[in-house]
């Protein structure tokens, strides 16, 4: 099952990307995510692995994931190594000056689960869609807040100089 949500953020593409590339931010803006911690030597970038869990229904599902695509400022994608099959992708595109469109795609399932698997995917879809939507809204709020803070800081530094 594949889900997708997008949002426009009033911030530069670079700022959005930097926020997404930092693993410690995920617990702050990803709705339903109860765990997102590096597993291995690489903390970020291509090949970085994380132990992630997201609460859906009666369980926290997820497992070990690995980032398999990393094109700075535009695309990053992960796939599951263990646990429930999943693929996720962040697409970050500049639509105007200091306006960035962010899309989060998420595909999930359990290979070999048969009819129950198909049913479970569909039953879980509304909850997961809500999580994706809320995550993007929280991302927008946090990045725009970050943008305001950095601009205020720049203004303070300029006036002090």
């Amino acid at each position: 099952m594949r889900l997708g949500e997008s949002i426009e953020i009033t911030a530069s593409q670079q700022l959005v990307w930097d926020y997404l590339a930092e693993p410690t931010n995920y617990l702050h803006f990803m709705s339903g995510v109860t765990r997102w911690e590096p597993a291995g030597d690489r903390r970020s970038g291509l090949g970085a692995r994380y132990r992630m869990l997201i609460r859906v229904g009666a369980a926290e599902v997820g497992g070990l994931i690995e980032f398999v695509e990393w094109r700075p400022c535009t695309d990053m994608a992960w796939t599951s190594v263990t646990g429930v099959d999943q693929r996720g992708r962040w697409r970050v595109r500049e639509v105007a000056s200091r306006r960035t469109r962010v899309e989060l795609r998420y595909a999930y399932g359990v290979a070999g689960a048969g009819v129950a698997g198909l049913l479970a995917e569909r039953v879980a879809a509304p909850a997961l869609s809500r999580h994706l939507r809320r995550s993007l809204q929280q991302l927008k709020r946090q990045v725009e807040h970050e943008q305001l803070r950095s601009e205020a800081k720049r203004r303070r530094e300029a006036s002090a100089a």
Partner: protein
Amino acid sequence: MADASTLAERARGNGAGDHDDSPGPFTVSGPGVLGALAGIGAGAARAGQAIAGRVAGPVVEGLRDRLTADFDDRDPDYIRENLPLTWLLASLWFRGEVRNLGNVPEDRPVLLVGNHSGGNLTPDTIVFTLAFSTYFGVERPFYQLAHNLVLASPAGQILRKYGTVAASHEHAKEALEAGAALLVYPGGDWEVHRPFWESDRVDFAGRKGFIRLALDAGVPIVPVVSIGGQETSLFLSRGDRIARVFGLDRTLRLKVLPISLALPWVINIGDFLGHVPLPAKITTEVLPPINITEQFGEDPDHEVVYEHVTRVMQECLDSLAAERRYPLIG
């Protein structure tokens, strides 16, 4: 293992698989017609025993196989492929919620000690097994101890794939020594069939074997407290007196013959055929680990440890019960 062999031997003692030539109870010696009739009777009895042996032999062997723990029977692929089905059941029917699984140590064997509810269907185990498997991954070895009769039932083969093994100290120790997480319910059949008005009561019936097990294996105890399971049916009585009258405690290690109001039977005696559980919300909370030797010394008084474990579990169950506004709904 002792349980398995005892049960198999008991079955043999009842005539299954026992076909030696020793005189049976029908053998009568003496001349004449009576003697001839007695001879025919004895022959028929021996033939009957032989047929019973041929028919029952494979059954006993199958039973023995089921009750012998083979830890390799646990099948992570099977568990993974059935996660969606379990998730549907746990999410939609029981609206399961498992809290604080992070209290379970990740990198060492651990003895999970739970209170048991819900009759033979044990919905709390379904919800917890799902949560454990998704949280830690199906790759982490996880076993559960169960009564012999549960494993001997038709569902036994499936349960073995989930890591359920016959309850015995040896099996438990073996699992923990292999580095697994092991779930035990000390209250067992006694607690799981308690009347519904005792649903917010932890009742291990004084069984302290889990303490010796944790000490022998050098592992921490992690209490797992659940509420809601006892609302999945209207349990009226354990029927422990009836079980004693029928000798179930001696023959099948069953201390109870539960009586409940359950679907579709209405009056359900024994719960041997299971029942349709009511959709009660199951909430489970995992408590911080109890390291017995650190907290109570190298040679602790088992009674003191037992009191401590059951007290912290009861306190947690009390708070879960206080959270619950309505039966079934939660």
